[in-house]
């Protein structure tokens, strides 16, 4: 039985088993590839999307848990916090290989949507689930702080 999920404001009927991870629904069924596969176990954060505004790891979220909810991916994220984050990311040249950055940006955006003036500790806590093997962490911290100044 196809279920319908709403991604970036658009309804998509999906013909997949209910246990199919949302990540693969987004990537393989809807063919949106900005959300990345990194670990499949909710360990690296590359697959982070927003489910009703909350950051979640789509690699361990079954399709059944996403049905009827509103999903936002890197392709659709456009809140003031998201725009400030993306701009700061570009200005500070955060990305190196870039593969994890969709997830980093989704986590950072969720942080600033809830807290426009995070402390270093709050940034570290919010971003601890997102691995970057290029180790762009110094710039991620700076970019979040810089983006925050645009929101207050």
């Amino acid at each position, binding site marked *: 039985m196809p279920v319908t999920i709403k991604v970036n404001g658009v309804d998509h009927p999906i013909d997949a088993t209910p246990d199919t991870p949302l990540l693969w629904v987004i990537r393989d069924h809807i063919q949106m*590839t900005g959300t990345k596969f990194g670990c499949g176990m909710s360990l690296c954060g590359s697959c982070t999307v927003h489910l009703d505004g909350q950051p979640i790891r789509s690699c361990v979220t079954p399709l059944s848990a996403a049905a009827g909810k509103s999903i936002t991916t890197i392709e659709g994220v456009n809140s003031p916090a998201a725009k400030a984050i993306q701009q700061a990311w570009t200005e500070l040249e955060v990305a190196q290989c870039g593969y994890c950055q969709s997830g980093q940006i989704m986590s950072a955006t969720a942080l600033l949507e809830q807290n426009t003036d995070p402390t270093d500790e709050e940034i570290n806590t919010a971003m601890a689930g997102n691995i970057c093997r290029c180790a762009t962490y110094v710039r991620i911290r700076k970019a979040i702080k810089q983006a925050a100044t645009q929101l207050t």
Partner: protein
Amino acid sequence: MMYTRSSFTAATDNQTSQESVTLSNRRDFLKLMTGVGTGLTIAVNIPPVLAQGSDSGRNRLENTGKDGSFAPNAFIRISSDDKVILVMKHLEMGQGTFTGLSTLIAEELDADWNQIQPEGAPADTARYKNLHWGAQGTGGSSAIANSFEQMRIAGATAKTMLVAAAAIKWQVPAAEISVKKGVVSHDQKGYSARFGELAELAAQQPIPETDSIQLKDPKDFVLIGRSLPRKDRGKTNGSAIYTQDVKMEGLLTTLVAHPPRFGGRLRSFDDSKARTVKGVVNVVKIPSGVAVLAKDFWSAKQGRDLLVLDWDESQAIKQDSKALMDQFKRLAEEPGISARSDGDINASLANAATLIEASYEFPYLAHSAMEPMNCVARVNEQGCEIWNGEQVQSMDQGAVANALGIAPEQVKINMLYAGGSFGRRANPQSDYVLEAAYIAKAVTGTPIKLVWTREDDTRGGYYRPMNFHKIRAGLDDSGNLIAWDQRIVGQSIAKGTAFEAFMVKDGVDATSVEGAYNLPYQIPNFHVDLHTVDLQVPIQWWRSVGHSHTAFSTEVFIDRLARASAQDPVDFRLKLLKQHPRHRGVLELVAKKANWGTPLPKGWGRGVAVHKSFNTYVAQVAEVSLQADGNFKVERVVCAVDCGIAINPDIIRAQMEGGIGFGLSPALMSEITLDESGQVKQSNFHDYQVLRITQMPEIEVHIVASAEPPTGVGEPGTPPIAPAVANALTDLTGQHFNKLPLKLS
């Protein structure tokens, strides 16, 4: 990854003559790499600077695209709509090479940075070879170093032709024409034109001889030396395309079941259950295992989980890491093959007033790029086409051609962004690329996307080799270092690969001893030897290769000697580096910027390390603190780097930051180990831990001003960090560290 010619540093570093293997015979290298004959070996006969020669008839044809575009050489295409497409011969895997190479061309072309659009080069060794290798590929932090002149000449050539076109169009002498920011002008007459307007006419101009090209005086650089915005865009909105993101009509996703232990082979399998999974289309046997092909990843994974596999493990490794390390330690009791010997090591050690000895253990390490290994391939009657974060085209092209029994020219390779590599995508066996090619061959006509899961990637081998080092040193009664005897035990990366012929000399793999056998410190009696161990565990270059362990043993031990003779670690090193001004330069700079010698807060320690790799000099000071829970934290790292002319200072800083972060993972937590059955214990990021933002120190990078030719920055930031942190911990606790990852006792 590999060795670069070291001529650039000859003037300032008198040990350059001993500086490792050089690619003296490129023709052999290419043949070995590709395993094939004529087609590709033509490449090495082409003049090295520009892939196109001076055959003006041929060039005339190639200069002009159908749309009136201007393509003066293999690297530049200027279209009538004023876009400047630059063809990038090196892989962009995060290190910033698309920006660096573009800068070199745009500088001499005097293009507007905004009009530059880089694109990946196809596999074409003749045109796009790495001039340090004679083969097409990226590694060894060599992209900028090998291209510095070539890319500038390419740009200057195009500019000369644009100016010639303008001179004809405006009927003015070429010498009166100037070019700035993508605009060609004749000031007196007030003429000006953008490149695109001149493209068609420029394409009809003769290509100037390379010898006649005048490159800019560095004082006239307008782009080189500036932190220009990066050109690898699309990484903040999900639009950048990696191998994982390739879409194609009819594309099947495939996962492969590999043997659980290295050296194992498939005996038989039953795929009847796997084939019942909805979405699974096919199951095929390939040399490395069993591939399940499906319409999507999840179906392929479920299908793979249902395979019933019988492995022949008679040749598989069945020892654990401790047993392997014990074997290494036993070997270290006996002399190995000498890599270098100066003076009389035995007599000098016997006569030393103080004798100090230490040993160091290093585990296997996985690269764990965020994008697990993957490759898209399609085989049809024309040949094989590959889409990949392609790092060594010549090698993979030859390997695929051999495997499929086709000509290398029939292997087309599209280079996409790589989601990290750290050496892994430059596999000497073309492992995962061949896997994709075999699967594509089995389903000829259907494109396939091979996807490794994180578990496949972590357990897939091709690790940074495990190593054991033992060092003995002697000081005289004045505290002078008179003898250094180092023994290294580990597997050889190059042995048994195409690289053996020029990387292994007299039984010594240069990648096993680099950074140790050419230790810069002035020591009259000096000896390094090597035991090479053969094991089933596949190994490979991992960001900074041998330097990833030799920098640790040598820089921790030199610190120990300084302490043993009650000398300041920076002063002690400087005294031994009199003949190495660039080592001294970074060391003095980092000491100054880190306020070396000034008091730290209570519970903090400070340590230093300096190491040259890939002709780039890096020194780092790490500050650590003891935490309330008994653990330690790396608080801050100050880094000084001398990489010659700084093409893009911000990217150099980014690579130092990233290289430090990458090196902190093995310093603090990462290790791959085998259990008693010989199986890799780790599988994903919960047990193969890597650095997270919470563990990332603040980093300050200082670049030495230099007029020397530029050298690479992708790898050299990594080697000094682990020893700098260990030395800081010794400063803090007095404990000596003999093992990575570092643990307080």
